[in-house]
């Protein structure tokens, strides 16, 4: 049931249905690593757009937080992959994530002022909700390598804090 909800939400928000369906065929650990890394980079891209556009101090602080924290998580991922002597593998899911983000970037780039702030905040909340469900409900239970699992568990703690923070930002901008 939860998986169904995750699929529905992710499909609506981020991805083409076919991209997500293929992704559910089961990613191996290195594909999960690549997808997690991509998801992090996407949020850094969104934050960079926000820093270039927003005049709202709360939105600016949130975007700075996203860059700081997601960069740190990706440094953690890089360190783990180097330690395990493996390379992340690009896959349909990470490609679908990137395709969804390219569309969203274009949409955000077309907005200014309060309209931008609201769209950015709403997207941050939706994006973190979606990614957190995938990480918590699909990736963590399915990855094989215990260190990759521990990495995802720690990353999820960070992303959940961001989800809460994004929720506050959405409310504050109403």
């Amino acid at each position, binding site marked *: 049931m939860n998986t169904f909800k995750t699929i529905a939400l992710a499909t609506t928000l981020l991805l083409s249905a076919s991209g997500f369906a293929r992704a559910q065929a089961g990613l191996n650990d290195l594909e999960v690593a690549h997808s997690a890394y991509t998801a992090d980079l996407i949020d850094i891209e969104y934050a960079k757009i926000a820093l270039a556009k927003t005049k709202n101090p709360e939105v600016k602080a949130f975007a700075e937080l996203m860059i*700081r924290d997601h960069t*740190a*998580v990706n*440094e*953690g991922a890089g360190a783990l992959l180097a330690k395990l002597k493996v390379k992340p593998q690009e896959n349909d899911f990470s490609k679908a994530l990137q395709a969804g983000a390219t569309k969203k970037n274009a949409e955000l780039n077309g907005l200014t002022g309060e309209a931008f702030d609201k769209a950015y905040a709403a997207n941050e909340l939706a994006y973190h909700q979606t990614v957190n469900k995938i990480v918590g409900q699909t990736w963590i239970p399915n990855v094989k390598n215990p260190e990759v699992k521990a990495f995802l568990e*720690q*990353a999820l*703690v*960070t992303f959940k804090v961001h989800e809460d923070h994004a929720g506050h930002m959405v409310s504050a901008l109403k």
Partner: protein
Amino acid sequence: MFQKSLSILVMAVAVGASFAPWLQAQTPSPANHAVAIQSFAFGPVRVEIKAGDSVQWTNKDFAPHTATADDEGWSSSELKNGASDSIVFKTAGSFAYHCKYHPQMKGVIVVRD
């Protein structure tokens, strides 16, 4: 050294002072109290120390954190994953602090004389 301490003791007793002040003067070197930062929380949340002791924060999260006084009178450096920083507390008081990046993270250092 022992001779000197003994003579101070004799004097203290001679003037009717209790042992306590003398013992206090001999208290060991300042202690260092460890606080871990993990899963966006300070642990332990509340630390009681003596004036002159230090507190050392170590960040076990990926996300960088700080330990920053609510009145901004003191702050650790930015602590990346695995990094530590210490602060010496010289004056008594209760010092509430937070992470400046994640203000929902809160702790308190209680310093006694």
